[in-house]
């Protein structure tokens, strides 16, 4: 189990940041991802695995009028 913005999400080995974003249906492009407080650079969502028990924050910025 991991937590994403305070909500629980199932964990499986090898689950990446990209998988989490997809599962949460986070379609917004301006995201800031932190795993247990550590910033994950935007280019490496596919290659960064999320460890079991992690607290993931996926901060959405604002856009539009």
């Amino acid at each position: 189990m991991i937590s994403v913005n305070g909500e629980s999400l199932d964990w499986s080995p090898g689950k990446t940041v990209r998988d989490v974003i997809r599962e949460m249906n986070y379609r917004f492009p301006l995201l800031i991802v932190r795993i247990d407080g550590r910033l994950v650079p935007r280019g490496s969502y596919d290659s960064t695995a999320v460890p079991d028990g992690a607290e993931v924050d996926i901060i959405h910025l604002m856009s539009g009028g």
Partner: protein
Amino acid sequence: MDDRNMITVEIDGKPVTVEQDTTILEAARRIGVFIPALCSSDLVDPYAACRLCVVEVDDGRRKKLVTSCNYPLRRPVSVETSSEKVMRNRKTILEMMLARWPNVKLISDLAAHAGVSEPRFIHPGADLNPNACVLCGLCMRICEQGIWENIINFTGRGADRSVRMPYDSRQPHCIGCGACAEICPTGAITMADDPNQPYDAEMVRRAGMRVTEEMIKYDDEQCDMRGVGTAHLVEIMDAYDLLPVMNYRFGAHEDTPKISSDVFRQNYFSKGKPDGCWLGCTMACAKAIEGFRLKTGPYRGEKVLVDGPEYETLGGSSNMGVFDPDFVVEYNFYCDTYGLDTISFSTMTAFIMECYEAGVLDNVKTGGLEIPFGAGDAALELLHLIGRGEGFGLIAGRGIRYMKKYFAENFGADPAFLQDIGMEAKGMEYSEYVTKESLAQQGGYGIALKGAQHDEAWLIFMDMVNKQIPTFEDKAEALHYFPMWRTWFGLCGLCKLPWNDVEPPDNAETDEPAKVPGHVQGYCEFFEGVTGKPQTMDSLVRMSEKVYNFQRVFNLRMGFGRREHDVIPYRSAGPVTVEEYESRQERYDAQLKEDAGIDPKGMSSVEKVAALRKHREKQYEHLLDAVYKRRGWTSDGVPTVEKLLDLGIDFPDVLELVRKHGG
């Protein structure tokens, strides 16, 4: 590190690992190896014109000279940046350049670095100007590739080659963005006019150029503002259950893809033509549709140019339950033509449609209009009636607040129901976001001075998705800072989209990325550059606070500035009908249990709707308390005398007015 295939090469004996297709020049820069490069910039495609960046590449079979700025690394090669062959080649080029442009500092510096102080030749066409053009082509490439204009180009051949505007005349299409002047390495291009006579034009331009650079580098992968403008938000809002559907009853619909930004990109928007509201804007998010043939109204059958649609116009269409792109374009055009605003029109039409479906209205009352959700033709007919000031259009055109009263008085409708579903505050129609799951945003609409508009504060992601502002105090702080900050754009006549629709690369590492501190700094410089007065984030907000409080007092004087005027229709805070509740039953049941401490088991849907409503309405009142307190207002929402004096507002009649209202 990027996810693409990585490759390791050696540059001057140092190993470096980079993504495949990185150029040698870029790889060398990453490990601090200097290669002179005159015609290259990360803002434009490589051009390989100056040939100063030559290096020697050894792929194991043979060695060859290549230009490093456009040589993509695909195999593990070794590179020498200053072998004998390279230096011989480079020196010859620099000697020729130095002979031609002896006083251009950049050239003499590069020559000195390569060990050349005097050229061996004399150039018959030597140009002694220290700011001579060295024909690097950066300016015309940034104009074409970066700004999407195509204003300047090389003309002439050989020694006569130079950069020109067509016919050597001022081009009306040049937007004056200044990118060509900023990128020019010699100062050959300068901006001629400073009609507003800013205190420090350079400071203004540099701040602007930073946004331009971000647009060039990141817009494609961020919001694609230049490609589709704010239309990109349609599919995003749908994904987060925030796109208003059928008078804000729901937040998503299976037909949303039919009006997504991709549809407009592929089939409607004119391509590759940047369109900014003001000359010089390089975000250029306005979009146009050319040659659209109208199907209705006074211009039926004619081909017209349509400005838009933007997100709100699209969200307005889903709000009316119409998912037809042709309809969107047609109603966009006629709203513009009649001088109506697409937000007010669509929100009030959605209200009419719900009234029609609920039996408040029928064909007789509407004068023959059959207008349930999804009836695009009827919506257009209504639009023309409003435009002509005829029939039911005369009633509808006066807006939701008027209709609520009119329907209750003349058609016997239940005023409480109309109040619940009539999406307006202070008489202004809501813009196109579903706010039910974000208390902070309910406040953002309800407290906004001008009425139900999100442009004071758009907090839904912060509140509902990121859960960054969980307490009333957190929400109140956000409802202090953002409305003040956003008011500042209005004070200066600036658009706020360049603030948060493109993001600086290091924004994530800042303390408060939601505020985009790098851009706030840019606005401080912009203000200082124009006025000569240095600013900070706090001083900008302070400017707004004065005006904002003054506006609140203005509202008060006009009969709109108290707590009772910050009420919101319940549709914006929660499900009004059983149908709405049941469409998101799991969510609402969980909230009843976890947030309100009420076990929904055994309750009927009607009871659950009522229980949730009681809870949410209480939350909203708490929020108002917290926001008023944070802003230094009374619990009735009136700025106190103390607050006004602190802001330097001491007009006797103003103080008298707030005193009269307990301030």
